[in-house]
């Protein structure tokens, strides 16, 4: 295994509000990391700093060994073109899909390949169909997103990200907006990706997914990683009271095994 992503001393503030207070994280290639934490703990902000949807206030991010940005007098500076390139190397899937409604499913998956990567149409098309196949939606290629169920939309969004050949995939509560009966198909797709060796950072409240799929679970609390470990141990025997309370809150109404 080799290091693919490294986050060093990541800080992020919105005006006076300090949301991330120094995050350090190294992710190995092929690893699936699940990030847990209560609402407002900074999970989305952390994920969004990784691909610079938000600019970190402080700290460094390395992708595949490359430091993003240039250091000047102890401060990081970023060029927009460099950040666009970085974003094209990292896939992101959102809670609300954010598919392009004026394009068919196929066009959605083609768009980034053609416009951002400059791939030839034929190559991009083959790639797009292969990714749609991978998420089980090849037969929907010529539909518009409005005709799909939430679960199908989310799988298209995953295919759109995969078509860019990302080095890392970020998932921000991608099943939270779905009807309960549609959650499974999306989690199954994510599990399949993890098993195929994709590097993934997932913010989710699905503890079952964390337990069965993650290599590592992080618990984010008030802007720091309060604890982390293998899912089997950390989800059953957390070290901190804070995480124990969090887990209890999540399993209050679980059916007995």
């Amino acid at each position, binding site marked *: 295994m080799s290091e693919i992503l490294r986050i060093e001393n990541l800080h992020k503030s919105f005006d006076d509000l300090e949301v991330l207070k120094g995050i350090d994280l190294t992710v190995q290639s092929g690893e699936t990391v699940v990030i847990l934490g209560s609402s407002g703990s900074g999970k989305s902000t952390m994920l969004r700093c990784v691909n610079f949807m938000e600019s970190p206030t402080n700290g460094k991010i390395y992708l595949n060994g490359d430091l993003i940005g240039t250091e000047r007098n102890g401060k990081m500076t970023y060029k927009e073109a460099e950040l666009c390139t970085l974003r094209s190397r990292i896939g992101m899937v959102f809670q609300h899909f954010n598919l*392009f409604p*004026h394009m068919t499913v196929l066009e959605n998956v083609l768009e980034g390949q053609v416009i951002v990567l400059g791939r030839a149409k034929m190559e991009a098309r083959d790639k797009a169909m292969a990714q749609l196949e991978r998420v089980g939606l090849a037969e929907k290629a010529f539909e518009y997103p409005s005709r799909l169920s939430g679960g199908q939309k989310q799988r298209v969004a995953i295919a759109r990200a995969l078509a*860019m050949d990302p080095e890392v995939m970020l998932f921000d509560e991608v099943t939270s907006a779905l009807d309960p009966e549609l959650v499974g198909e999306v989690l199954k797709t994510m599990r399949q990706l993890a098993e195929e060796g994709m590097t993934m950072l997932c913010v989710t409240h699905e503890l079952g997914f964390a337990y069965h799929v993650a290599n590592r679970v992080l618990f984010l609390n008030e802007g720091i990683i309060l604890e982390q470990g293998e899912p089997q141990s950390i989800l059953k025997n957390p070290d901190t009271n804070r995480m124990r309370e969090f887990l209890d809150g999540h399993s209050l109404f679980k059916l007995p095994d």
Partner: protein
Amino acid sequence: MEWNFLAVLRDFDLLILGLLNTLKVTGLALLFGVPLGLVLALSRLSTIRVLSGVAGFIVEFFRTTPPLVQLFWFFFALPILVDVRMTPLIAAVVTFSIQSSAFFAEIFRGGILSIDKGQWEGAKAIGMTYGQSLRRIILPQAVKRMIPAFMERSIELLKTTTLVSTVAYTDLMFQANELAQKTFRPLEVYTVVAVIYFVLIFVFSQASIWAEHRLAKSGEGTVR
């Protein structure tokens, strides 16, 4: 009082010439006004304070001053300030391009703001630049929603161009005035001119309704 359209019909080619000139001014004002409106809208939406401030001022200024005052200013006042020769056509095109761009700017701005923020995010996340996001993702969706307001403004523009007759540009209204004096038949002349404007605008708005339906059918229903 007896209606007699003969005199009008005999000189109908004068009115046709006027109509063509009206369409020319309107068309040119649209040609320059729409892109300028987009530039103003994007400037106004910019996070660069100075840029959005200046754009905001221009938009508000041209939306709140009477178009006749603007026209006179460009035709009579500007040549005193700077050494330009103003023909009635140039003055009219300059005035109505800028004036309508102020309105188009607000239509563009409203259209762009009406698009869900997630669309910008989706585009950004696959590595698109601001320009690519705007061109490929945001504007195609925004423009669809803008069509009714856009058409209404264009019709408004067509009607406002009647003002150019006051600086002796031979538009439809100017020709009508000439013809009315020449034939002593104002009733018939202005009736015919009213009908011409009505037909023109009616056809125009029918076409826009048709275009809107066509676009609505192609694809999406909701933003997501």
